[in-house]
């Protein structure tokens, strides 16, 4: 375990009698960014939710010294933050309200600015595009951990549906978070983003296919194995 911020051993998830995640082990150290990649239905989202302790799972799990499946929600929220692929909101809050609800309006405003959404602070969520709404929820997740150091951030497709400049802003935020001493695990379809992460975990049909540095995991052989032969031409 030593320096690992996130440590999962033989993690398995079964939903409705179907095995979605099967014996996945992975770890992320402080200061590390880890990308989870794989084809549609590989189990990326389920793995991320299991790591966040939001799903019942079997196997060993340790996030920042706690097992998020059994620790109380308040303590857990101090060690790991999670942002869903499609965050939702039943009510039409103003963007800045999210920071108040979180209880850290300043930290939230700071991350909002880093994601280039500062100008929308006074807008209602319904006035924003889907990508901008996602950005507001991402800022909430970033700000949820008061100090990146010693925290784990779990993001599901953070840059999907964002325009290019905001995609880059999100990538920079992820790397800045990791550099400050946090561990950031990102489920993504974006292989060029994955190549910039410290480590990559390739998932296929709920199993770990490869894990390690981008250069050794995102090879044509592994990509065509996981995604199918036609995908190997994708760089």
């Amino acid at each position, binding site marked *: 375990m030593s320096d690992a911020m996130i440590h999962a051993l033989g993690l398995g998830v079964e939903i409705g009698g179907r095995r979605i995640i099967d014996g996945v082990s992975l770890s992320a150290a402080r200061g590390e960014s880890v990308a989870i990649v794989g084809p549609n239905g590989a189990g990326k989202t389920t793995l991320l939710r299991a790591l966040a302790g*939001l799903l019942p799972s079997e196997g060993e799990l340790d996030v920042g010294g706690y097992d998020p499946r059994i620790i109380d*929600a308040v303590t857990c929220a101090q060690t790991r933050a*999670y942002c869903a692929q499609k965050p939702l909101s*039943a009510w039409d*809050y103003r963007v800045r*309200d999210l920071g108040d609800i*979180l209880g850290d309006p300043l930290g939230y405003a700071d991350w909002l600015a880093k994601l280039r959404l500062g100008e929308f602070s006074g807008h209602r969520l319904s006035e924003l595009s889907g990508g901008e709404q996602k950005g507001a*929820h991402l800022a*909430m997740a970033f700000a949820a951990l008061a100090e990146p150091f010693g925290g784990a951030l779990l993001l599901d497709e953070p840059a999907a549906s964002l325009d290019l400049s905001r995609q880059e802003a999100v990538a920079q935020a992820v790397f800045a978070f990791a550099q400050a001493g946090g561990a950031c695990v990102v489920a993504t379809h974006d292989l060029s983003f994955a190549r910039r992460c410290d480590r990559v975990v390739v998932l296929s049909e709920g199993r770990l296919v490869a894990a390690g540095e981008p250069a050794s995991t995102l090879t044509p052989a592994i990509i065509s194995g996981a995604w199918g032969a036609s995908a190997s031409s994708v760089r």
Partner: protein
Amino acid sequence: MAGCVLLAGLVVLALSVGTQGFGWGDGGSLLLLRSPRVLAALAAGLALGIGGAAQQGVFRNPLADPGLTGVFGGALFGIAVLLGLFPEAAWQRAWFIPAAAFGGALGTSALLTLIGSGGSSSRLLLTGLGLNAFTSAGTLVIASRSGESRELLTNGAYGDWLGMATLELTWLPVVLCLLAALLLLPLARSLDLLSFGEDAARGFGCEVGSARRKAVLLTALAAAAATCLVGQVAFIGLLAPHLARAMVGPRHAYVLPLSALLGAGLLLGADTIGRGLWPQAPLSAAAVTAILGAPLFIWIARGRHE
């Protein structure tokens, strides 16, 4: 902020509507006679307003309202069962009737949560509609079979109980209304977080299960206590939160207290209009609420689509 000024203004408004009511009597002696009624209307309206806001928050559904989802129906049904089975014993202790109402409200809340939540918005409302129809029918069946309680229960179904408010009958439900409201206020942040979905709520440190149970339990308590005071009143639990959100935005830290005050003002206003305009044959608060509330509600519904 502006919200706080509005809150203060509404308290004054609710109070002044009440005092105008005193003035229409035949002198100061009526003050003592009517104050329980005014108090009951204020407390019940408060509970209805905040209960509606809490139920909408916990079900993440702007149309959830204890009147539409059958929780009031359940409360009245609970009272009907008690009166039907033990017509004399029911009045022996002050807490018997509130307890029966709470049991009924809790029963329908539990069924609503088990059957209706987790699915689409229409599933929740259809479940509520079914529960409401069932409990109303049950109440009427009991009412038609029990001679002495018949008029009482029919009046309850029409929301016409405020007229018989005495301090003796109302003190406990009034205290319960206030208690439920006070205990719901600290749930504001949980209700905000719940609006982002279960994963996000838990991710940000909300114990989803316990927050939900608390909110459902306290909403049932508020609905039960309010039912003991007025009988069934629709629309307040729906209107007060909608007006509150239109005034201060959707954050529950503001919506909950403002809905409580708006609810108190609306019910007291409706009751005052009902007996002020037709002193000889007063209209029930529920009738006035529906007459004034329904068009307002349709107007809100139209606005949501535009």
